[in-house]
């Protein structure tokens, strides 16, 4: 048991060090004033508000952070980062926690957000530019919410806010090389 605990702690320290190295931010500089949380746009849907994420990292409790709804849902508005009196880019810290969670295959409960990012990039991968109509349809079908935003469709059509034919770039060979360069882009 003792060995288990210490290995978790050691792993925690390693992950925190990794986050600090990649993000270039010093987690230890946070003194818990809570300004990040007071300005956070999304904290009402997060399980841990930003200042608690910082504290968890300081304590090496990375499992909580990597599995948190915060890491899945933070959409990087960076308001917290502009308010930090210690100039810590808090959003960047959360961002890197999210990437490490991704790399470790941690999926979490917020499937739709993941799905959105995936759908967006698959869409771009295909034509080089985003086809919004296709994105909306794909998301709705894959997330089993076919009626999501359906009330906006007549408005979108009336205001001509959509193109039916997907836009595409000419040099798709270059585009494919870009996606191949990042491991085939199949990581989801």
């Amino acid at each position, binding site marked *: 048991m003792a060995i288990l605990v210490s290995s978790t702690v050691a792993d925690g320290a390693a992950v925190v060090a990794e986050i600090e190295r990649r993000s270039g931010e010093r987690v230890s500089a946070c003194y818990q004033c809570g300004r990040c949380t007071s300005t956070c*746009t*999304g904290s009402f*849907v997060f399980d841990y508000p930003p200042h608690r994420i910082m504290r968890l990292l300081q304590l090496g409790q990375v499992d909580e952070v990597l599995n948190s709804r915060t890491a899945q*849902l933070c*959409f*990087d*508005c*960076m*308001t917290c*980062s*502009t308010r930090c009196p210690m100039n810590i*880019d808090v959003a*960047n810290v959360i*961002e890197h926690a*999210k*990437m490490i969670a*991704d790399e470790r295959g941690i999926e979490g409960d*917020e499937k*739709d*957000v*993941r*799905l*959105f*990012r*995936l759908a*967006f*990039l698959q869409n*771009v991968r295909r034509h*080089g*530019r*985003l*086809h*919004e109509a296709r*994105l*909306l349809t794909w*998301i709705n079908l894959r997330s089993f919410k076919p009626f*999501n*935003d359906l*009330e*906006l469709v007549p*408005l*979108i059509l009336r*205001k*001509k*806010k*959509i*193109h039916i034919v997907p*836009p595409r*770039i*000419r*040099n798709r060979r*270059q*585009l494919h*090389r*870009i996606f191949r*360069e*990042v*491991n085939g*882009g199949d*990581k989801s």
Partner: protein
Amino acid sequence: MNNRSRKDSAAIKAPASAKPGRNAYSYFPGCSLTGSAGEYDASFRLTSEALGIRLDEISDWNCCGASPAPHHWSGNLGVLLPARNLHIASGEHEAMVAPCAGCYNRLKNAQHELTGSEELREQAARVLQEPVRYEIEILNLVELFAREVSPEALAERAQGRLAGLNLATYYGCLLTRPAKIMNFDNHRNPVSMKPLLRATGAQSDHFPFKSECCGSYMGLAKKEIVLRASRRVIEVAAGLGFDAIVTACPLCHQNLDLRQGQINKAFGTSLDMPVLYYSQVLGLALGLGSDDLGIDAHAISARKLLAKIGKGDDGPAAATRSAPAATRPTPEATRSAPAANPASRRQVGCG
């Protein structure tokens, strides 16, 4: 890094004959402006033309990757996608303009990362199959107009057309953050739209929610975030008596305008706040027709606002309003006016 003054570039680069405008820029429209934000593209092109700025669309540009690319793939997709655009644009002009705040943000971030990493530059060179060029100056349209148009010159042409309006300037997140990379205005209290807006004759009081987040790209995946965040922005603007919110971001616009009906439905509110693009407002001030500027392409009608500045019902009235050429000073009038000095622009107070 690329601290090019406007005068220098004119001296070095300009083949005088090939310059219909004073200055030419590579134009990166981005996906939104060719789709759901078509009116942003149209109004930007029209307004630029009226102000004598030449825009050359970057040939065969691709999506910048927006928020999902850097967030999702831990590879360098968030750098490589914009790098291709930077590479193409760098061969065309010395500066490029990206009106979409998301594209602007991604392009600048990618440039920053390319500058700092040999490894990334090599990776980019591998996919482009030639050494990557990335040192083009990247501007948003707010910066472009602040540089190319002096408030005095605009005031002279606008002749107080927008008098009577009080416009809330809304910058959102992506124009200003992260501050050390974006280097856009003052990130805690951005003010760079204000001098030109005031030159239109409109009033533009301090809007305390100018850099709050609208909920970003969560509209499809986690709508309650967008509805709540955007509601706050609109409600504060309405409570302070603003006639419209002015934005320079198609995603903000989508959240604030297209989803305003959803907000009303979700919270039982009755918000009715027009949201206009910065280029549309400047276009109106220059006397361009509201139909051409796509004012009618929004979910929330700006009819009340147009009536307030004597444009009445959009259609026919707009045409007659923009017809009399006598009231519109010639392009030469603005062309000879001194351009806004970027240094002095930073010091404009907000009060």
